[in-house]
């Protein structure tokens, strides 16, 4: 029942339950309001508890299985008297970080795009986009808030996995497992931070594909399937192009084809991760198929394209949902 109230808005009737408070007025700078929007986007992700718990559980269980596998390999080789520092590195600090990093690069990426796709696509499937736009939130600002929230989630997810890996590694080190000597110093922590940022950039870039496809398709299914299809096509295309270049007599076209994989997103963010974990402690194999500037430029161009297309689509669209 809609409560009666006096003309001034205060609740009337026999037992007014809530007094009329003064209407709050908008406050804060553009940046403060933007920060509130970002926080709201993060809150929406957090409140999708079933999804967060499911994806988080999958992530942790998968990681635990890998650690148990590594531990099984170590025990098996110890029993044969063949266990060496190299086997121990996967279970000690800082070597264990590479297991966590590799895990988040592939499995974390898949789970992240599912979460990002669900969040972006559901704004359309739930028809909630109009809630913000009809309240004066600019379309560009809304998109920017979604992107910043996605970046923070990417940073949080990778940080969580790396911290978990560090914990596993410290336990392994404390247990006295053999390991390659590593100097714990500022340079190592610097490497870990850059490694963390590169890992986060990897899943963030693919999260932007969820934003792009989700905005274009206006559906959860599209937003989730889009990045997964992109990854699949990218891997298959990379292999096919490489194979063509390898088996065909060199000419101008083949040379061009041979260079195309260097412009795939995965190759370039992979190169950034590889470079970030290359030293002083070798968390990655350090193999680079492209240079650092090339990898950075291509990755930035991809991200800019995903964001730009999403913005153009959203800003020109009629919100009919």
């Amino acid at each position: 029942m809609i409560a009666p109230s006096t003309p001034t808005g205060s609740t009337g009737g026999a037992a007014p339950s809530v007094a009329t408070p003064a209407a709050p007025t908008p406050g804060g700078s553009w940046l403060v309001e933007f920060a509130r929007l970002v926080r709201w986007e993060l809150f929406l992700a957090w409140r999708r508890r079933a999804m967060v718990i499911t994806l988080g559980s999958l992530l942790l269980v998968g990681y635990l299985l890998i650690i148990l596998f590594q531990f099984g390999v170590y025990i098996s080789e110890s029993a044969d008297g063949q266990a060496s520092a190299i086997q121990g590195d996967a279970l000690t600090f800082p070597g264990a970080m590479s297991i966590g990093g590799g895990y988040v690069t592939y499995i974390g990426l898949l789970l992240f795009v599912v979460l990002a796709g669900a969040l972006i696509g559901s704004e359309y499937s739930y028809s909630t986009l109009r809630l913000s736009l009809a309240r004066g939130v600019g379309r560009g600002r809304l998109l920017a808030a979604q992107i910043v929230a996605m970046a923070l989630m990417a940073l949080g997810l990778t940080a969580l996995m790396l911290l978990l890996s560090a914990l596993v590694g410290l336990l392994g080190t404390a247990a006295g497992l053999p390991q390659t000597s590593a100097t714990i110093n500022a340079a190592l922590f610097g490497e870990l931070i850059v490694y963390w940022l590169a890992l986060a950039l990897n899943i963030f870039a693919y999260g932007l594909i969820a934003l792009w496809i989700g905005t274009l398709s206006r559906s959860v299914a599209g937003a989730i399937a889009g990045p997964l299809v992109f990854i699949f096509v990218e891997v298959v295309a990379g292999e096919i192009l490489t194979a063509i270049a390898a088996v065909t007599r060199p000419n101008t076209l083949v040379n061009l084809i041979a260079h195309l994989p260097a412009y795939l997103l995965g190759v370039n963010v992979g190169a950034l991760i590889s470079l970030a974990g290359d030293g002083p402690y070798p968390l990655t194999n350090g193999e680079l198929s492209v240079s650092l500037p090339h990898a950075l430029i291509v990755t930035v161009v991809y991200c800019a394209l995903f964001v730009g297309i999403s913005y153009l689509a959203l800003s020109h669209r009629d919100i009919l949902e």
Partner: protein
Amino acid sequence: MTTTVAPITSPATAQPQPEVILSTQGLTKRFGARLAVDGLSLEVRRGDVFALLGPNGSGKTTTLRMLLGLVWPTSGSISVFGQDFSGDARRQAALRRIGAVVEQPTFYPYLNARENLGGIATFAGLAATPQTRARIAWALDQVGLTPRAGDAYRKYSLGMKQRLGIAAALLTDPELVILDEPTNGLDPAGISEVRALIARLAQRGVTVLLSSHLLHEVQQVCTRVAIIQVGRLIAQGAVSELLQASRGVLLSFDQPDGAQRAAQALYAATLPWAPFASYLHEGGPVAGPWRLLVSAPHERAADLNALLVGAGVTPAEVRRHEASLEQYFLSLTGGAALAQLAPAYNTSDAHVDAPQTPAEATPDSTTQGGQA
């Protein structure tokens, strides 16, 4: 043709018009080949309870979406609070002063009412302060949702969702409230409460723009209306003035051809004070008398009767007719509105200079009504 009824007052006695806080000029929206809104020019003044009326698909919701910046106009302009709506910054500033519910309210289904209103507050630029939380509690209390404020939105009935939509519209104490079909899904008590709520908003000086199919409700709460059909404005003005213009003399006949003969007699007489007439029929095609509504001043009822008796067409009943908004609406929108708005009351326009036989007019109208 657009009918705009304005009060006829001399300059000396004219009252100052309230500020126009929302206006559209030639507002047009085309979706591909379909013209949804066609050159709509509206004017909503401060303090108005303004109803946008029209059959389904007439462009009401598209119009409201354009006013909220959700749909981009193909052409035309919108001015809100005296500011052109086309610039991003101005539009966003104006929207901060508007509370709205468009179509069926939608919220995040996994959040509860408090959390959803918290989101609305965030979108409106409000900080999560105790004052904002108190306002959220107040808004929920206003619509009677306090006991269910902690339940997830997906568990709400349609009526509760509608109430939450209204609470969201009231949250920031807006100067203009836009409600699209606010009584959808509400039971009769809920409809009455929404009517009371709108009246309270009007008393507080809040301007209300609503769309509705419930013409009886609209007539009770609205001060001004605009009627649109197929995207075009066909009438706009104060409710009282529109109804005043559609008053007339209602003639009833016992014979099936009585109304037709009367229309022909009036046409032949060429009366300057009775320029139009409409056939009215209540009930099924064979039940009840034929009736003719003549747009003539009430004081001319006796003259009309004398003229028709002289012509050999004696009405069974002559009485003054006070049109309801529903009748006025139907007379303007015709058959397109019948199926959804008035299954038991059909009308077919019959201009006096081109009389139409009841036999031609009725079956179609009745069929449409019967299908509703």
